[in-house]
Every structure is written in C-alpha cells, then in structure tokens.
C-alpha cells in the first residue's frame, strides 16, 4: 500500500469524523443505551475504518458503514456484559408506544435526541457545552479542555459527572414534546451561541478569535437548521452567526490588533455569508413575532449591509434594540442599545443610560460597560474621566488584542 493511498484514506476518515460523528454516535446510543459505551464503540469504529477502508476501499456511504460497525460493537459489548449491565440504570428511552405517540412530531432524527440530551437544562451550562462538543461534534476531551482553559483532568471529570447525572437521574434520550420545545430549544440555541461567542472573542490568550470553536458553532447551527427547518429562531441564530462571522478577517489587523466596526474594511467582508444571513433574517422575520436571535441577526445584518458606519440606518438599529430589549430584557442588550442611541441622539444622552446601568449593578465586572462609557466620554471631550473608565475596563480584560486596544485609547485620553 502506498503512502499516498494511506494519506488519502486518512483524509476520508477525518472528513467522515467531522461530518458523520453525530449521526453515528446518536444512532449507536439507541443500541448501547449508555453514552460512554456508545462513545467507545464509535471511536473504535473510526479506528477500524482506517484499516478496512485502506484494504477494501472507501464504502459508498461512510456514515452508514460506521454506524453498522459501531452498533455491532455495542451489541457485542452488551452481550458480554449482560449480567453486569442489567444492574446498571440504562439510558431512558421512550418505549415503543410512546415512540408511536411522538411520530407526529416532524423531527425524529437521532441527532436531535443527542443534542437535546446534551443541552438538558438539568445539566450545568458548562457541562452542556462540554457534552455537546464531545458527543455531538466529536471533539476530543483534551481539545475541549484547551478551548476552555482548564486541565484535561478537570474537563474529563466535568463530563463524567454530567454523564453520571444523565444516567442516575434518568434524563431521557428523546426529543422534547411540542409543549416543552420552546424552552428546550432555547437552551440548545444558547449553548451554540455561547460556543460561538467564546470563539469569537477568546476569554484570554493573544488571539482574538478561536476559529475552531467558531466553526464548530456554525456546523452545529447548520445541522440544527437541516433537522428543524421550520423553527424561526434556528434560522435567526444561523443568520446571526453567518453575518457576524462574515466580518471575522477584518476584526484584527495584520499584527492581531483589534479593529473596531467603525474602522473595519467593509470591502473585505464575506458578501456571500452576509447575503445568506440576510435572506434567513427576512424569512425569520416573516414567520411571526421575532425572537431574540432573529432580532440580533436583523441588527447584525443592518450593520453588515450598510455602506459605512456613519451611513448605517441607526434609527432602525435603535428600533430593533427596543424590540430586543422587550423580548430579552438583559442589561447587556441595554448596553448595546446605548451605543445605537449615541448615534441617533448623541453621546450625552447615551451616557445617561450608561450611568443608569452602572447604578443597576448587574453589569458590575462586565468589561464592555466601562469600555463603552470611556468611548462616550472620549467623544464628549471629557478626557480625564475617559481615562479613568479605560483603566476600569483594562482591569477587567484578559484578551491580549482587547487589552492593546484599550491601552492605546488610554494613552490618547491621558494625552488629551
């Protein structure tokens, strides 16, 4: 066998890992009725594939081949351990009659069961994220640990604890019923969005963006969109990620320094992604009262399609923020709304809103609050106060690119 041949097979297997992992694992869980066992069997199946495909050629449907192999391993393991396993609580699955009851649900893909189980609200948010990356995306525990800046042992313990809870508390391996769906879907969308924002501005380190996390979040949203094509908020989230991510290459300069929206090179934005996102927003807006992600996407799309920062339709941005604040009353939204308010009614009015948010206290420790305040003060020519706010923002910022930006602005304010 030639080296080139082996490399080609490795590439096909790696590709199948990225594309088919969730499908293969989700189907195997049905047989194994245990997440750990299923994971082991799927891992094994990919290993066997490396060898088998090199010898016998790549099967026409790699996903189906891998699923069959992994399921067979699970069945063998179950037979071997039958006595032992009968004493362990198995993953709860709706029995046959209930499956019939559920069949009117549009969605019965096993991958959805897997996603909804990983993002069950009875699990801690950080465990939801870790399980989703490991079980749905197939990312290794070590890579997840590195992405979230904890040791591999800590991450492994976090996942073991969550899997134990799924088994001991009997979190069912199923798609939520129609009445549960809105809350449960929101939990899934929140997990994906958090994954994206963690990658979009890495909590620390020198690089602003962690491309791996950003792309996993996009893959997950596309998968969810394919599985739940009629959910407007899934469309909204996909639009939001596409339009935001279209600006990725322009958010830092060649030296990795932060470039603000105002100064980004708009001609370098990914027009195809913006267009796709824009169409999704239009569709999502058409299907009734828009939710949180649709509104955020609509705002992002207005920015992405504006010829320049100054020529952005700020009154419309402000209107959308008002609506967003209504469906999602979060102080972070109020802070972002203040930025739009500054563009429509001037920095002095916006500063009043910022001071109110400071008194409110919920954003204490949130670095973008003093950073926004500093910028408004700077524009009002109040350099001394601006410098103080920049210092407060620096105290809260660990990302290298963001720190450099704030330090430069602080130096200007001190000089001013």
């Amino acid at each position, binding site marked *: 066998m030639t080296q080139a041949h082996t490399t080609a097979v490795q590439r096909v297997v790696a590709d199948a890992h990225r594309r088919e992992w969730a499908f293969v694992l989700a189907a195997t869980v049905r047989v194994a009725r245990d997440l750990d066992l299923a994971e082991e069997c799927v891992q094994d199946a990919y290993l066997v594939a490396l060898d088998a495909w090199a010898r016998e050629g790549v099967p026409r449907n790699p996903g189906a081949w891998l699923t069959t192999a992994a399921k067979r391993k699970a069945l063998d393991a179950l037979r071997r351990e039958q006595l032992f396993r009968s004493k362990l*609580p198995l993953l*709860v699955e709706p029995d046959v009659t209930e499956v019939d009851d559920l069949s009117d649900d549009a969605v019965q893909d096993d991958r959805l069961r897997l996603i909804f189980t990983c993002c*069950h609200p*009875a699990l801690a948010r950080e465990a939801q994220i870790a399980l989703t990356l490991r079980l749905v995306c197939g990312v290794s525990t070590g890579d997840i640990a590195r992405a979230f800046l904890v040791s591999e042992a800590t991450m492994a313990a976090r996942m073991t604890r969550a899997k134990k809870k799924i088994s*001991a*508390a*009997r*979190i*069912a391996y199923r798609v*939520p019923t129609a009445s*549960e769906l809105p809350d449960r879907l929101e939990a899934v969308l929140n997990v994906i969005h958090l994954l994206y924002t963690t990658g979009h501005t890495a909590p620390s380190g020198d690089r602003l963006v962690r491309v791996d996390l950003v792309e996993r979040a996009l893959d997950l949203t596309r998968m969810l969109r394919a599985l739940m094509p009629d959910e407007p908020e899934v469309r909204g989230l996909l639009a939001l990620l596409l339009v935001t991510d279209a600006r990725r290459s322009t958010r830092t300069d060649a030296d990795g320094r932060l470039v603000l929206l105002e100064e980004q090179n708009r001609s370098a934005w990914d027009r195809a992604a913006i267009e796709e996102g824009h169409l999704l927003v239009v569709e999502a807006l058409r299907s009734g009262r828009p939710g949180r992600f649709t509104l955020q996407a609509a705002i992002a799309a207005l920015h992405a399609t504006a010829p320049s920062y100054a020529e952005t339709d700020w009154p419309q941005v402000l209107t959308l923020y008002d609506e967003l604040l209504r469906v999602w009353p979060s102080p972070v939204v109020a802070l972002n709304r203040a930025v739009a308010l500054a563009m429509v009614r001037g920095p002095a009015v916006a500063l009043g809103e910022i001071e109110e948010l400071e008194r409110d206290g919920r954003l204490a420790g949130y670095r973008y609050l003093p950073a926004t305040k500093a910028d408004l003060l700077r524009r009002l020519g109040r350099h001394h106060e601006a410098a103080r706010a920049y210092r407060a923002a620096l105290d809260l910022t660990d990302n290298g690119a963001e720190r450099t930006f704030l330090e430069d602005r602080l130096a200007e304010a001190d000089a001013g």
Partner: protein
Amino acid sequence: MPQYAILIYERETPNGVADLPPEVLEAHMRVPERVEELGGKILNAHATQPTSTATTIRGDVITDGPFIESKEAMAGFFVVEARDLDHAVAIGRLVPIVSGGVEVRPLLAG
C-alpha cells in the same frame, strides 16, 4: 419505573402550616390528584414539624436545631414513581411554593 424524592423547601414562619395562605394550602391538598393526572404515582408523603423541633447529631455532639441553618428549610417530602427526570420535574412543579423551592432527587434503584 424510577423513583424520585421531591424535597420541599419553604421559608419558615412562626406558626408553620397555619401561616400558609388558604389557597396555597388548598393547592397542596390537590397535589396527589394532579400527580395522578400526570401519570405519576406518589409512594409516600410527609410534612415535617418546624426546624425548631429538630435535633442534630454531629459525631458525639447533640445540638438543638436543623443540620443546615438557612432561611428556607425542608418542610416536607414525598417519593414518586416517574418515567424520567422531565416527568419528575413536571410533578415537582405542581408543589405550590410561597418562598423557597423544590429539589428533585433520584433515589438509588433498589
């Protein structure tokens, strides 16, 4: 079917149950019937006397009062059979709470 303990935590008031608003008391009375409607089964249920009547043992030392001092104290519990955690949580939501909350805890399979 798996079993869960539903632990009820409430802010303690001087006269205990007698201080509960009548509509809350009535809602408590209706819980068993509503659990049944949901397809769950209560195996046993108990309300406890106030924590001022509790006695705590730590090692050799016996003290007056509950094991954990907090504003909200365990006021009662019941054990249910439920299909899965979602079902048990739906049952837990039926418990009327004035100021406190409910903990759903799976029991070790016997």
